[in-house]
């Protein structure tokens, strides 16, 4: 049997560095044609580098990797949204991609109208939608509001309707990106059930997720991407083990893979957990490359769980702001200290933001580092804390 999907030496390059915005103002080109020549040569960022793998019909393949590993780019190429720079993909079946639920939903249209709009954008024919219409509405559970404009729906209802449409697609290959990261637990279960049903019906599924239990449940094989390269492919258990091991290797230093040319950016971050529970601290050393466009700015930090649940943020106060004048050799290094609450044991991610006001972001590196909390937040308690109850065990005492 021939593979249904042959991914052959896919490469995708982006030009970065020259312009901060992907689109340019004509003014820049007209006003100063010479400036373009003087500009530093743009850097090429390789989001995918020589990725090859095959998928057999009926297989469900998981694509795992850390943020920025190139998963989304790979899905975009598979869906035909953006072309690869090199290499090719041979497909032997219709691909439907779900990179987002509810693409094309319009809030002014009613639920019924949106089902048709969304369905046809996803590649269904009108006759197909007609055929599945009752099943879609049934699955979504919004039949009472069918003729109500979408803007009156709760976000949960919108999501259910959107997934219901997508679940009734009948392509040979279904490409799904983390759509399950949203919605309540009940709904997630329903979605997983539906996807399981789809994969059992013999269709091919490509699934990107950070949710390892879901991946293990749904997929039989997997590929592991790291920095655009295919690191490993094989059985799902091995891939999940590899991913978990990889992410657990607490990364306490991050160096920007590329710098932004003439724009200021974060170029290095280091972390260190100090102190003891419940008063432990996180020391963060941030290095910023300072360029001409550097305004008076400040930093903030975001801490989240491994499965991308945002937990807390910290905005250390600088007196009054970080200023260009403080730069030494074009760089500013800032050492900050975060008082961590009593967090349960586990691995957490850290993201760093820097900008001049909450509406002006200069650079935002999400989930670039991880740090591990090894001590129990409660002295003497050795039993593991259940994660579904939250990540912080606040200090408490019996008063009477």
């Amino acid at each position: 049997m021939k593979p249904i999907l042959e991914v052959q030496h896919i490469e995708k390059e982006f030009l970065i560095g020259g312009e901060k915005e992907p689109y340019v103002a004509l003014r820049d080109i007209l006003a100063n044609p010479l400036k373009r020549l003087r500009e530093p040569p743009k850097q090429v960022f390789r989001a995918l580098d020589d990725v090859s793998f095959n998928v057999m019909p009926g297989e469900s393949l998981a694509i795992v990797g850390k943020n920025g590993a190139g998963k989304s780019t790979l899905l975009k190429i598979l869906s035909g949204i953006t072309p690869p720079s090199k290499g090719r993909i041979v497909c032997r079946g219709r691909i439907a991609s779900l990179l987002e639920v509810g693409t094309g939903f319009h809030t002014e249209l009613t639920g019924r109208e949106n089902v048709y709009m969304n369905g046809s954008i996803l590649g269904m024919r009108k006759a197909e939608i007609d055929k599945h219409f009752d099943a879609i509405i049934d699955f979504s559970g919004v039949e009472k509001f069918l003729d109500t404009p979408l803007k009156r729906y709760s976000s949960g209802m919108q999501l259910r309707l959107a997934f219901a449409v997508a679940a009734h697609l009948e392509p040979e290959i279904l490409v799904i990106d983390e759509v399950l990261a949203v919605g309540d637990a009940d709904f997630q279960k329903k979605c997983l059930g539906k996807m399981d049903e789809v994969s059992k019906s013999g269709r091919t599924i490509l699934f990107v997720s950070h949710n390892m239990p879901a991946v293990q449940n749904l997929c039989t094989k997997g590929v592991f991407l790291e920095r655009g390269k295919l690191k490993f492919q094989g059985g799902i258990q091995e891939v999940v083990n590899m991913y978990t091991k990889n992410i657990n290797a607490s990364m306490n230093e991050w160096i920007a893979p590329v710098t932004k040319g003439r724009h200021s950016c974060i170029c290095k971050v280091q972390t260190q957990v100090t102190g003891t529970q419940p008063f432990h601290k996180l020391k963060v050393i941030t290095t910023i490359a300072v360029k001409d466009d550097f305004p008076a700015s400040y930093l903030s930090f975001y801490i989240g769980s491994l499965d991308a649940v945002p937990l807390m943020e910290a905005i250390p106060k600088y007196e009054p702001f970080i200023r260009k004048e403080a730069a030494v050799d074009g760089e500013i290094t800032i050492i900050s200290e975060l008082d961590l609450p009593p967090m349960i044991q586990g691995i957490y991610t850290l993201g760093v933001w820097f900008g001049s006001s909450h509406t002006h972001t200069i650079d935002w590196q999400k989930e670039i580092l991880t740090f591990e909390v090894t001590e129990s937040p409660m002295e003497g308690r050795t039993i593991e804390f259940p994660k579904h109850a939250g990540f912080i065990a606040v200090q408490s005492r019996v008063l009477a």
Partner: protein
Amino acid sequence: MEYIIERQYKFSLGIKELIRYRELFYFFTWRDIKVKYKQAALGFMWAILQPLAMMMIFTLIFSRGLKVSSEGIPYPVFALSGLIIWNVFSSGLLNSANSMVSNANIIKKIYFPRLIIPMSSILTALFDFCFALLIYIGVLIYYNHQTDWLRVLYCLPLSLILTVTTTLGLGTMLSALNVKYRDFQYVIPFMIQFLLFVNPVLYSSKIFENSWMEWIMKLNPVASAINLSRSAFTGNPIDWLSVGLSFGVSLLLLFIGVYTFRKTEAYFADLA
């Protein structure tokens, strides 16, 4: 079914794909029409009221005030014969030029032939044309205007084809450029205002007779389309030379527009 995803070097129109996705034309057009009129209390009445109000204000200023010549027919009949065509062009161009940017969220997430988007924006403008035409027929009856309907039957469709070809050419080109250079967002409304005065919508193109402007009018497909539609109602002879020439120009525009669009569309998702 076997196909290959790779970088495209060769240019193709992608007609086959457009046919496969033909239902999307309907859905995009239908969505735009629905959304446009849904929140308005008067709904579709706006499609009628707009050209009517424009006709009235122009009659007041140009006919009563400035005493502009209207080729021997009542000025409202004269103005509307141009306005119905002009509105297809102006709203079609405005919508299609902004269409790629305003649908960026869809473009970034789903693949379908991108040409469908600017094309459906023009179909939406044609929908409004149907209402405007109804109004026009009402005005013709009101003024008891002697109309050669047989002549209307070939002049109006021909004029419409000419307008749509031109709008599509300019629209696809501008929508592609708009993705890369957002400046066009500001340029286009201004450009349309400017073109309203350059085209013989409110005045007769006869005022340019025997001047260099006459040739610009002859080559200009929009002016030609307006003159063609107008001559159906005035009974003036049709300038077939101008119709032929401007058809050539509009086909050239269409080719340049679609070529630019197809050449850059693969990178819309990266740019938008």
